[in-house]
């Protein structure tokens, strides 16, 4: 399925701005609707919605990298962890401003991605996947063994922040912050995908050599998007650390990288909407499967295979199939 012409059409259209607004508003609306039951004060639903919002940020980030740019990273959980530990060490342990700490975490994740990405992104497809897997496992070892991360026990005593005099200590207030961040990341994704660079990345995904020939600086584009998506993952990690108020290596291992990947695949890898849908569905299904034990991994395995075989564009493509004909140009 070639979505490039659609992306191009959307970007050229004068209505692009309004479409972006529509999307953001719709997403804000979605979170607002989810927020309604939250007002009932049910701690469980707040917790699940918070996890879904964090999952959505991660999935949107990996969606840009994998779905839109065709680069597969298994190190997203590592970047997430780098962001989380950095934010906690700076804000909780050294009293640095929360927002500054959050972005410092994102920046450090980006730096790691840049340094590792520069040589690795010469490789494509399979090789990058394995290189990022080695990176993920290597960084997990650092989380487990380093002093600054508190080893396998991790870091305790984290308290949700106060920003500009407003306390986000209650889970609900913090969820609002998470939802806001998710909407902003969603808008950012939309902007990236529909920018000139976004079209260049789509060209790289379709044919790297051809993209190079028509003047796309392949390595630079790949390194940039790898770095940017790692920064988003780092941001999500920082936000996660303060949601859970506890960080330990178990939260940043390969399993989480794979879980985020499954969100992207199940929802739909070509669009930010797909990633968000995937994050929400996977988060909810995970909750429903809590009591079935190991069987849930069988469900995941079969789920991934079935999606890859029969719905390569994810669950959101069902909607497209239903609507096909009337709005054949919809390329979300």
């Amino acid at each position: 399925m070639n979505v490039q012409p659609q992306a191009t059409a959307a970007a050229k259209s004068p209505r692009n701005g309004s479409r972006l607004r529509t999307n953001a508003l719709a997403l804000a609306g979605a979170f607002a609707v989810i927020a309604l039951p939250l007002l009932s004060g049910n701690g469980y639903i707040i917790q699940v919605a918070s996890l879904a919002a964090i999952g959505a940020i991660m999935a949107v980030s990996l969606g840009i990298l994998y779905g839109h740019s065709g680069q597969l990273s298994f190190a997203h959980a590592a970047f997430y962890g780098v962001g989380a530990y950095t934010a906690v060490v700076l804000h909780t342990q050294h009293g640095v401003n929360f927002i500054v700490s959050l972005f410092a975490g994102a920046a450090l994740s980006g730096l790691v991605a840049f340094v590792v990405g520069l040589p690795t992104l010469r490789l494509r497809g399979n090789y990058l996947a394995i290189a990022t897997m080695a990176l993920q496992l290597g960084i997990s070892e650092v989380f487990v063994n380093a002093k600054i991360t508190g080893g396998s026990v991790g870091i305790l005593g984290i308290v949700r922040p106060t920003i500009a005099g407003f306390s986000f200590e209650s889970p609900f207030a913090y969820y609002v912050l998470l939802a806001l961040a998710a909407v902003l990341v969603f808008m950012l994704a939309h902007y990236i995908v529909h920018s000139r660079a976004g079209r260049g990345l789509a060209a790289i995904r379709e044919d790297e050599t051809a993209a190079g020939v028509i003047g796309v600086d392949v390595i630079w584009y790949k390194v940039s998007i790898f770095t940017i998506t790692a920064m988003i993952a780092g941001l999500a990690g920082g936000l996660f650390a303060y949601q859970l108020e506890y960080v330990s290596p178990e939260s940043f291992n390969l399993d989480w990288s794979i879980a985020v990947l499954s969100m992207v695949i199940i929802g739909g890898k070509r669009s930010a909407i797909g990633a968000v849908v995937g994050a929400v569905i996977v988060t909810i299904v995970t909750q429903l499967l809590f009591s079935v034990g190991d069987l849930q991994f069988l469900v995941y395995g079969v789920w991934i295979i079935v999606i890859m075989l029969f719905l390569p564009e994810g669950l959101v493509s069902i909607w497209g199939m239903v609507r096909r004909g009337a709005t054949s140009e919809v390329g979300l």
Partner: protein
Amino acid sequence: MRTQAIDQAAATVRRRLSVIAIGVATVLLLGAGWGSRGRDTQPIRIGLAGGLTGSQSFLGQAQQEGVMLAVDQINAKGGIAGRRIDVVSEDDQFDPSRAAAIAQRLISQDHVDAIIAGTNTGTALVYAKACEAAKVPLIVSFASDNRITQGKQWTFAVDTGVKEDMQAVVAFAKQHFQRVAVTYDDDAYGQAARDFTLAELKSLNMTPLAVVAMPDGSLDYGPQIARLQSTGAQIVVAGDGGSNVAQMAKNMVQVGYEPLVMGPASLAFVSMIDIGGAAVEHKVWFTDSIDSSNPAFVTFAKAFGAKYHQNPQTGFEPLAYDSMGILAKAIKQAGGVDKSAVQQALTNIHYAGASGKAGTEISFPAATHRRPGAGINWRWVTNGKFENVPANLLANPTALAGKP
């Protein structure tokens, strides 16, 4: 033409998103309604959470078996003051963020009266935090990091702390041996055990000959053992938990290096005897909470065998059994499930359980909220079974500490 398409697209997007939003909200609302269905005040609701998946799943399973045995026995006698016990069981996969969701589900949706949880350090910390905030009594079944209960009001741990366990191991080592090395698993428990061991050695003016990581799940510890062997350590203090101890013992025998391996109860895990075979016989000593000569344990083991058609293998099953027993006793003393009253009863409880040394009681001193170290009992493997170490050997273990 294009603009029209885009217009339609935007409309579709709006429709599509609102459908998604409504769908999601419905699912969540249904979930909320469903979870709180038929909330009857009659039965006592106990939340039970542990890791039931992956290589450590025997922990969650042992927890479930022990607790359910106690629940069956209590319900068979008509419950507590005429009220049955209902258990809501969840699998946290040893993952703290799953544990956070489960804690909230148990507390704010299932409205449980108390929780038994904590098959590893990370999740136990999360449950403790949630229970403290919601003022729900929590019994930590296995997790033995001392930080879990420190400074807590509502959290009580039935196992001795890793600190006390390692102090006992080091004190014993100091008494009988000079050349000591330390190994550890790199999970939260293993690292805590390492840190307490090193601190304790230091306070006794002993220097370990080597401190070596033996991560669980490695295929071969030969390289690390070569390093230990080169130091000539007579005794290895192992802060490990899992299959690594059996594999380590096997690798030691292979190179003809057979020091005594001593450590906490986590050394005794379900397949250690299977995998270790002759290599672990008499060579691995651990401070378990099982005492074969404790009459309460014997009664428990009989009932356990009748229900599950197998013997309790490790110290975990009786710990879980006692977790429920203590909770039941506290509820009885409190005269109901009023959470403050139960918490108060737990604070003052004295419980002679199936776990622990004969003649000792489980209590929760205010400073630690954790069973004191006096319950520790030395165990080993003999004839393919976990047994108490004979008293004569406890007095003179050097006879067994083989060729360094």
